[in-house]
């Protein structure tokens, strides 16, 4: 398969109190159309990735909502899959284009979270888990803390090793002007930050963020002069049980393993071919598990590899050049789309100070809930 990415854009991520969801989408669509060099009349369908607009903002029906805002009457739908909503919207866009029903589509991911109290956001995010987990008061940090404890028990992973993920991702974010936290943090700062759900501390956790990201996907090749051309060469999804208790194994995410294997097969490549990856580090432990699920390191070996700097700029593969969810921010519905934009920019060679020299093939790993949904995309330079 081959779907061309004609352009990509993100807004600044952060606490954007003076900007509404409408404004976020308007801004990002204007930028993405200009990046792609097309007019809005060429958009034949819109796929919106979003999780919480109904629960937090009281606004559902986002397809029509944003179509109206953009002055379009083309088919428009919202796709929801918790924190994987953005990746799923990209997948829907890829299916739409590869079916030849639409030639060129807009995928936009958006989330507005900081208008609401943290307890309310925590409760709303728990909608992604099971009813039993909600009844236990198991927040998202708590669910990933349960995965972390299982990983520590099985492989001897330490809190220090988890902290190194935050240190690396903050370093990358310090090179990204769109990041929510564009500055480095020290190992000591991470380890001394307050406990959220043991063993996870504040600086092990991704923040609550506002932001939007968009891509234009097309079955038509990018116009002449827009070299190099970047294509999505694999798009795969897998699903696991909603609740953690129903899983056979707690030190990995089976859905991420299945989706990545499918994606590698689709692209005809292996994990060692990946030069740069954006992975779903909603918590530091999640990046360690992702490295193992994606086949970048054997199970139980990723934590030390990250500590040794093997996935930092200068290493291979370089992981989360944007700063990841941890430091670039995690507007849940936008995250999966932002990951595509970052890899697109890396392969195009326009990633600025965080550019991975000579990157040819990149991967995105977007996870919903505590691993019930996983979406993997592989992008390549033509």
């Amino acid at each position: 398969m081959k779907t061309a990415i004609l352009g990509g854009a993100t807004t600044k991520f952060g606490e954007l109190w003076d900007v509404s969801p409408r404004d976020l989408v308007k801004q990002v669509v204007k930028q993405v159309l200009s990046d792609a060099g097309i007019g809005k009349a060429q958009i034949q369908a819109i796929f919106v990735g979003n999780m919480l607009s109904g629960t937090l903002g009281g606004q559902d029906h986002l397809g029509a909502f944003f179509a109206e805002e953009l002055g379009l009457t083309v088919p428009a739908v919202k796709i929801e899959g918790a924190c994987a909503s953005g990746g799923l919207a990209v997948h829907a866009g890829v299916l739409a284009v590869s079916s030849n029903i639409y030639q060129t589509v807009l995928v936009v991911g958006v989330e507005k979270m900081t208008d609401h109290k943290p307890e309310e956001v925590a409760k709303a995010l728990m909608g992604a888990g099971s009813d039993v987990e909600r009844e236990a008061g198991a927040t998202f940090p708590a669910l990933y803390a349960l995965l972390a404890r299982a990983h520590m028990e099985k492989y001897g992973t330490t809190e220090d090793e988890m902290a190194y993920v935050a240190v690396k991702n903050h370093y990358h974010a310090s090179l990204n002007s769109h990041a929510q936290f564009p500055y480095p943090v020290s190992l000591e700062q991470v380890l001394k930050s307050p406990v959220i759900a043991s063993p996870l501390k504040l600086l092990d956790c991704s923040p609550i963020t506002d932001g939007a990201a968009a891509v234009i996907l097309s079955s038509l090749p990018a116009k002449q002069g827009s070299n190099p051309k970047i294509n999505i060469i694999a798009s795969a999804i897998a699903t696991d049980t909603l609740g953690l208790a129903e899983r056979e194994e707690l030190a990995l995410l089976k859905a991420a393993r299945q989706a990545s294997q499918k994606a590698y097969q689709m692209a005809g490549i292996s994990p060692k071919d990946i030069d740069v990856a954006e992975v779903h580090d909603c918590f530091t432990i999640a990046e360690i598990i992702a490295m193992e699920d994606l086949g970048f390191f054997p199970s139980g070996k990723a934590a030390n590899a990250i500590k040794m700097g093997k996935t930092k700029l200068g290493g291979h593969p370089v992981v989360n050049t944007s700063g990841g969810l941890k430091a670039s921010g995690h507007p849940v519905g936008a995250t999966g789309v932002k990951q595509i934009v970052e890899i697109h920019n890396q392969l195009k060679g326009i990633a600025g100070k965080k550019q991975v020299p000579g990157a040819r093939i990149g991967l995105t790993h977007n996870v919903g809930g505590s691993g019930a949904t996983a979406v993997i995309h592989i992008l390549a330079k033509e």
Partner: protein
Amino acid sequence: MISPVKIWRNQKKIRLLLSLTGHILSFTKVHVPPAGFESQAPYAVAIVKLSNKKNYTAQLVEFEKKHLSVGQKVKTVLRRTREAGEEQVIPYGIKFKPID
């Protein structure tokens, strides 16, 4: 979010989970609670392998620090789970209690 009818429907399942024993597979102590759990924080949550072979996620109560460990034996008990909603129906559910 939690209507009385939903509580009534779910509570019928609880009796099947009472007085089971099991052991902790993983645990955490939650310091930052969601809405409805503020008065209980910090509280412990565990995934337990029960004697009926199924795993279950619930809070651990009436425990000491030494009980927060993988492999700790527990039994299921009936407890209030969260603050009552606007209708004032008190939600009850399963929690775990350590046993020696």
